[in-house]
C-alpha cells in the first residue's frame, strides 16, 4: 500500500487531494468514494496528526463515509442535508486544489528572492516631543488590560482538545470490550454515551475497522434501522 505520513499534510483537504492525484483521478464523487478507505486508514494509522486538527480530519471522514456508503449501496436515499454535504466536499476540494496550486507558485516566487526594499520611514526627520493631550497614567492601565485579555491561551486550547478527542484505537478497544460483555449490541446503544458528533464518527470508523479486521459482524435489517453488531465466532 502507498504510504504517506499524515503529518506532512496541512489538513484533511491536503491529504484527500494527494490521494486523488496519486490515483490520477479527477475530483468527483466517484473518486472520493474510491479513496475513502485509504483516507480512513491514514487517519487511523497516524498518531502524529496535530491534535488541534484531528477534529477537522474526522469531519471530512464522516462525509467520506456518506459518499462511500452511497457508492456501495446506490439505492440508499439521502436527506437533502446529506446530499448537500456530499456536493460541498467535491466543491471544497476543487476550490482547495486551486489555492494549493497557487500557493506552490507563490512559494516559487518567494524563493526567487526578487524582493523590493523600502526606506525606513521618515529616517531623515528629527523627532519632536509631541505628547498626546488628555492622556493620563490610567490610560496605560486601561489599554494594557485590554491587551492582556486578547492574548490567546495557546496551551489551554490544545489541552482541551487532547481531553475531548478520543482516538480511534481507544474506541476500538472500548467497542471490543463492550461487545464481549454484551455479545450483541447495536450501534445506537454504543453511541448513546457519546457527547458530540466527533465521538459518533470515531465510533463509526471503529466499527468499520473492526468489520474489516473481521472482529465483528454487522447486520442491518432495513434502511435506517439500527445496525446490530456481534462478535464473530472464531
Amino acid at each position, binding site marked *: 500500500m502507498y504510504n504517506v505520513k499524515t503529518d506532512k499534510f496541512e489538513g484533511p483537504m491536503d491529504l484527500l487531494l494527494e490521494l486523488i492525484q496519486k490515483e490520477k483521478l479527477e475530483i468527483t464523487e466517484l473518486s472520493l468514494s474510491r479513496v475513502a478507505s485509504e483516507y480512513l486508514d491514514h487517519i487511523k494509522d497516524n498518531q502524529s496528526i496535530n491534535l488541534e486538527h484531528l477534529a477537522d480530519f474526522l469531519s471530512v471522514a464522516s462525509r467520506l463515509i456518506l459518499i462511500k456508503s452511497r457508492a456501495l449501496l446506490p439505492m440508499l436515499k439521502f436527506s437533502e442535508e446529506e446530499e448537500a454535504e456530499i456536493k460541498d466536499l467535491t466543491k471544497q476540494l476543487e*476550490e482547495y486544489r486551486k489555492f*494549493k496550486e497557487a500557493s506552490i507558485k*507563490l512559494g516559487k516566487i518567494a524563493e526567487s528572492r526578487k*524582493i*523590493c526594499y*523600502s526606506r525606513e520611514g521618515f*529616517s531623515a526627520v528629527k523627532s519632536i516631543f509631541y505628547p498626546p493631550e488628555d492622556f493620563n497614567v490610567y490610560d496605560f492601565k486601561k489599554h494594557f488590560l485590554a491587551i492582556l485579555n486578547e492574548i490567546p491561551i495557546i496551551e489551554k486550547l490544545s489541552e482541551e482538545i487532547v481531553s475531548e478527542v478520543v482516538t480511534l484505537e481507544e474506541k476500538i478497544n472500548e467497542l471490543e470490550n463492550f461487545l464481549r460483555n454484551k455479545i450483541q449490541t447495536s450501534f445506537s446503544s454504543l453511541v448513546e454515551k457519546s457527547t458530540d458528533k466527533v465521538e459518533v464518527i470515531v465510533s463509526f470508523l471503529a466499527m468499520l475497522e473492526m468489520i474489516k479486521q473481521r472482529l465483528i459482524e454487522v447486520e442491518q435489517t432495513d434502511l435506517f434501522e439500527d445496525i446490530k453488531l456481534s462478535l464473530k465466532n472464531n
Partner: protein
Amino acid sequence: MEIEKIKSIIESILFVSGEPVKISRIAKITGTEISEVENATMVLQGEYNTNRGIIIIKKEDQIQMATAPENSEIISELVKSEIQENLSKAALEVLSIIAYRGPITRINIEAIRGVNCTFTLRNLLMRGLLEKVDNPSDNRSYLYKISFDFLKKLGLDSIEKLPDFETLSKDTRIENVIES
C-alpha cells in the same frame, strides 16, 4: 494643480515617508482632489515602470516607493534586514487564499482549507505579511488582507500581478449562486 506638480509632490512624499501613504492623505496635504492624485499616481507608476531602480507599489488606496525587484541581490546586502524566515506550506496556503480572495474572514479561509488557521494567521500578522481590519458586517470578526510587505517580498507592484489573478480572484461558487 498641474499634474506635473502633483507628480513631483507625490515623489517627495513617498520618498520622505518611506512607508505606504494613503492617496486621500496626499490629496489633503496638497489640497487637491483624490481623483487628481489617483491620476498622477497612475502616470508616475508608468514612468517608474521602465527599468528604473525604484518602483511605486499600489494596493487599494495606498502607495509606497520601494527598490526594483531586479536589484534585490545587491540591495539585500546593503540593508541589514532581519533573517528572512521561509514561508511554511500552511503560511503559503493561507497567504494565497487571502491574496486572491481578500478581504476575507477567518471562517471563509477555513472553509477552503478545511482546517483551523488561527495560529497561522497570528504568525503572519506578526510578520507583517497580513493586515487585519474590522469586519463591517460583523463586529465580532475581522477581515484579513495582504500587506505591502507581502507584495514587496514577492517583488510585485500590485496584487493584480499575482499569477492567474483574474481567474482565481473570482469565487465561482458565489457567481453560481447569483446566476441561479
